[in-house]
C-alpha cells in the first residue's frame, strides 16, 4: 500500500523536481537588503540615544511641566539629577531615596544627608576633571509646592553646583503657556 502511494505522489505533477527547486530557493534567501535596513535603523537609533540617558529619561509617575523655551545644558558641565515626586525625593543616577518632600523640610537629618551627598557629588565632578562644572538638574512634578523647590534650589546653590536647571518637556504650541 505504501509503495503504491509513494509512486503516485512522485509521478503526480512531477513532484520531486519542483520540491527540490523550492528548497534551493529558500536556502539562498537574500537577507542583505534586510541587513542594510537594520544597519541604517541601528545607526539612527544610536545617534538619537543620549549617552547621558539619566538626564533625558522621563521619570515614571511624574508629570513634568511643558515649556516653549529651552536652553542647552553647559557643554563643560556634568549633571546630577534630583527628582522630586509628590511622595519621595530621589537623587543621582542610581535614584537614591532621600525621603519625602515633607521629611526634607522638617527632618534635619534628611536634609544634612542630602547636603553631604550633593557636596560629595559636586566635589567628585571637579576632582574627576577640573574643567567640568557640576550642574544640578531638577525634575519635579507639576503639583509640587514651591516651598520644596525653593529649599532644594538653595541646597543646590550651597553645595557647589554652579548651575541649576529645571527639566521640562518641550512643547511646540505657544498656546499651552496661557491655558489654565
Amino acid at each position, binding site marked *: 500500500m505504501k509503495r503504491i502511494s509513494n509512486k503516485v505522489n512522485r509521478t503526480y505533477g512531477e513532484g520531486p523536481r519542483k520540491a527540490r527547486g523550492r528548497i534551493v530557493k529558500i536556502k*539562498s534567501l537574500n*537577507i*542583505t537588503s*534586510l*541587513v542594510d535596513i*537594520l*544597519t541604517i*535603523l*541601528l545607526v539612527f*537609533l*544610536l545617534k*538619537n*540615544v543620549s549617552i547621558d*540617558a539619566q*538626564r*533625558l*529619561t*522621563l521619570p515614571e509617575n511624574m508629570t513634568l*511641566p511643558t*515649556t*516653549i*523655551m*529651552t*536652553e*542647552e*545644558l553647559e557643554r563643560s558641565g556634568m549633571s546630577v539629577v534630583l527628582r*522630586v515626586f509628590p511622595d519621595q525625593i530621589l537623587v543621582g543616577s542610581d535614584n537614591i531615596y532621600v525621603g519625602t518632600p515633607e521629611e526634607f523640610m522638617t527632618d534635619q537629618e534628611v536634609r544634612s544627608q542630602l547636603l553631604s551627598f550633593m557636596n560629595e557629588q559636586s566635589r567628585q565632578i571637579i576632582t574627576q576633571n577640573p574643567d567640568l562644572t557640576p550642574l544640578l*538638574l531638577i525634575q*519635579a*512634578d*507639576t*503639583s*509640587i*509646592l*514651591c*516651598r520644596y*523647590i*525653593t529649599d532644594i*534650589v*538653595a541646597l543646590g*546653590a550651597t553645595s557647589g*553646583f*554652579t*548651575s*541649576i*536647571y*529645571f*527639566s*521640562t*518637556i*518641550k512643547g511646540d504650541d*505657544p498656546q499651552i*503657556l*496661557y491655558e*489654565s
Partner: protein
Amino acid sequence: MASGASKRRIQKSAGMQDLNLIPMMNLFIIIIPLLLTITVTVHMAFLSLDLSASGTGGTGEADGVGQAETRIKEIRLILYSDRFEIREEGVNDPVIIPARSREDGSMVYDFGSLDNSLAEIKTRNTEIEEIKITPYPDVLYGTLIRAIDISKIRGFSEVKYERIRVGEL
C-alpha cells in the same frame, strides 16, 4: 570525477562570497528592540537659573565722558497664590495681575496678562536681561515654570530665583 571536483571548487568560492549574516542578524534583533525601549520619544527641555550675584551691572561709558557705574534696574515677579505682582524699580505702583476664580473655587492664573505686562516692561527696558522670580510657598511648581518660561520668551534670559523677602509673607 574531474567535473565533481571543479563543482566543489565553484561551490567553495560561492560559499566564500555568501557571508554568514545570521550572527549579525541576531545582534540586530537584540540591539534594536533595546534601543527602541530606551529611546525617549518626548523632547526634554531645560530652563536655567542664574546663580550669579546680582546688583550692579558693571560699568558703562557715556559718550567717552568719564566712567559712570550703571546699576541695573531690578525687576521682580512675585507669584502669590492668588495673583502675580511685577515690581519694577523706580515705579511706585506694582503691576498686579489677579487670578480668576473658577466655579469650583480653584484659582486660574492669568498668564496672558503676565505675558503682555512683561512684554511691555521689556520694551521700556530693552537692556535689562535679568528678572527675579519669587514664588510664594503655596504656589505650584507648574506655575513657577510657566512664569519662568514666559519671562525667558519675553527676553528676560537671566532668571534669578529668590525667596520671599521678610515682610512679604
